C-alpha cells in the first residue's frame, strides 16, 4: 500500500546506492524535484534507465550519481546536446559512464514486458542496424508459426521507478492524464516506486470511467511536490518552460558553470523550491 511521505523521506527509504532506477516522463511530467533530491542525498553507482535521458539525467550524470545509463535518445529536445552526458561518454567526466543503448520501441516494449511480468519482449525492430553490435541485450526469437525472426530484449525490472503525476488521493491512488509516456509501465515494472504529485486531493471526483490510475496498492511512496516537474510541465497545471531548456545549453556546456548552478539551485535548496515555479506558472496561465 502506498505511503504518503515527504520527498526526502521517500528517497531515503526507496533509493539505495547501486540501485537500478527508472525516472520516467516523456517530455511531460518529468520528475525533476525527485532527481534533485537523489542528487542532494548523494546516491552513487546508480544504473539509470530512461527513454530520453534529458536534463534530469544530465544533472545526475554530471553530479556523478550514475555508473551506467540505459537509454534510447540522449539529447536536449529541440535544443541540441546533453553536454554532461556527452562529457561523461566522450571524456569520462566525472567518471566513466557505461551505456546500454536501445531504440524507443525497444525501451517501450521492455517497460511493457516488465509491467506484464514477462522476462523479455519481442517486437519487429532493429532490422539492418548496428545496435546489436554494441548491445548484447539485443537478441532474437523465431516466431514458431511463421518462422520470422523478431527482435527480443530483456524486460526492464528496475529496483525503483520514480515518476511525477498530477494528483493522488489520500489512499495513494495516483491519477495521470495527457501525454502518458511509459510511467504506468515503469511503476508496475519496478520493485519499489516514488510518485511525486502536484496535489493530494480528498477524492478525484468525476472522471473518465477509464481514467489512467495507478491503484494505491501498486504504488510505494507518494510525496506532494507542487511544481515538481519543472522545467517540464504538468498538463492542467503549468506549461513547459521552453526557455529553461534553451538556457540549460549554456549552463551545462562547461563543468564549472554546471557545478555552480547545481550548488545554488540543487544542493542548497529543497523540494519546496519547486512550488515557486508551480505558483508562478499557474498564475501566468490564468
Amino acid at each position, binding site marked *: 500500500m502506498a505511503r504518503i511521505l515527504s520527498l526526502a523521506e521517500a528517497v531515503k527509504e526507496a533509493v539505495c546506492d547501486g540501485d537500478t532506477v527508472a525516472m520516467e516522463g516523456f*517530455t*511531460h511530467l518529468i520528475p525533476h524535484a525527485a532527481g534533485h533530491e537523489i542528487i542532494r542525498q548523494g546516491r552513487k553507482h546508480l544504473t539509470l534507465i530512461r527513454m*530520453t535521458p534529458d536534463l534530469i539525467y544530465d544533472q545526475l550524470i554530471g553530479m556523478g550519481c550514475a555508473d551506467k545509463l540505459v537509454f534510447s535518445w540522449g539529447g536536449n529536445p529541440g535544443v541540441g546536446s546533453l553536454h554532461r552526458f556527452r562529457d561523461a561518454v566522450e571524456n569520462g567526466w566525472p567518471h566513466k559512464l557505461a551505456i546500454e543503448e536501445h531504440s524507443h520501441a525497444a525501451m517501450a516494449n521492455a517497460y511493457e514486458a516488465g509491467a506484464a511480468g514477462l522476462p523479455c519482449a519481442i517486437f*519487429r525492430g532493429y532490422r*539492418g542496424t548496428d545496435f546489436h553490435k554494441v548491445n548484447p541485450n539485443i537478441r532474437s526469437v523465431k516466431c514458431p508459426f511463421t518462422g520470422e525472426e523478431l527482435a527480443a530484449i530483456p524486460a526492464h525490472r528496475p529496483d525503483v521507478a520514480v515518476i511525477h503525476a498530477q494528483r493522488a488521493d489520500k489512499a495513494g491512488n495516483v491519477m495521470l492524464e495527457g501525454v*502518458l509516456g*511509459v510511467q504506468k509501465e515503469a511503476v508496475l515494472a519496478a520493485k519499489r516506486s516514488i510518485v511525486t504529485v502536484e496535489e493530494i486531493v480528498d477524492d478525484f471526483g468525476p472522471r473518465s470511467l477509464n481514467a489512467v490510475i495507478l491503484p494505491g496498492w501498486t504504488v510505494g511512496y507518494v510525496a506532494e511536490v507542487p511544481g515538481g516537474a519543472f522545467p517540464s510541465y504538468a498538463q492542467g497545471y503549468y506549461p513547459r518552460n521552453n526557455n529553461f531548456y534553451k538556457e540549460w545549453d549554456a549552463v551545462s556546456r562547461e563543468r564549472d558553470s554546471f557545478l555552480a548552478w547545481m550548488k545554488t539551485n540543487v544542493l542548497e535548496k529543497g523540494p519546496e523550491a519547486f512550488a515557486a515555479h508551480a505558483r508562478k506558472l499557474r498564475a501566468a496561465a490564468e
Partner: protein
Amino acid sequence: MTDYKPNEMMTIAAARALGNDDVCFVGIGMPSAAANLARLSHAPGVTLIYESGTLATKPTVLPLSIGDGELCETALTTVAVPEMFRYWLQGGRISIGFLGGAQIDKYANLNTTVVGPYDKPKVRLPGGGGAPEIATSCGEIFIIMAQGKRSFVEKLDFVTSIGHVQGGDSRAKLGIKTKGPTRLITDLALFEPDPQTKEMTVVSIHPGVTREQIQDNTGWQVRYAAKVAQTLPPTVRELEVLRDLHARTARVQGEAA
C-alpha cells in the same frame, strides 16, 4: 520572385510532398514545420502523429519538444508510448515517416548515434530514438537534411536506421515490405531512389543551385536522373503561412518564459 532562405525552400518542398490522406509520423524541427505547413495550406486533412502518443494533433504553434502540451490539447486523443510503438507504428498504420540525421549515405541509411568509433566517439550524438523502427514500419520515408560534406558521407560511422541498405533488393531481402526513403529533401535539391540501384538520385534542383554546388556538398559521386527538373520556388502563400507559423511559435515561446 519573393526572397527566401534555403531552409525555407527545403521545408516547403517537404510540405508539398504530403497529401490529405497521409498519416504522418512527425519529428521535431524541420519535419514538424513541414508537416504543419502542409496542414495549414494544401493538405488540411493530413493526420499528424508525434511519438509522444498524440494522434491527429493540430497544433497552432510548433512544439519545441515532441510532447508539448499544445500537441496533446489539440489531439483527437493521446495514447501511452508503448501503445504508440506497438499498435500505431509497428501496426503499420503510418503512411509517412520523417527522418533526418547527422550522417547519410547514398542509400539513405542514417546515423544519429556517434561520429567516430562507438567506444571512443569524437561526437556522441543523441542516438536512435524512434528512428530504427520508423525507418522500417512507415509506408515510406521522407528525409530532410541540409547538405554538407560532413553529413553526406561515403560510409556511416554507425547505422542507426536503414534506408536502402546496400541498394538493389538488399532492403527487401531483410524481410521488410515497406518502401523506405522515397524522397530526400535538402536545401539544394530533391533526391529519389533510382528504381534499380536504389541510390538516391537528384530529380529536381532548387532554383539558383548548380550541380557543382550539389557535388561540393556531397561526399559521394552524385548521380542525376535522366530528366532533372527545377524545383518550383516557394509561392508567396507558402512563405506567408510558414513565416506566420514561425512567428506565432516565437511569440508564444517567448510569452511562456
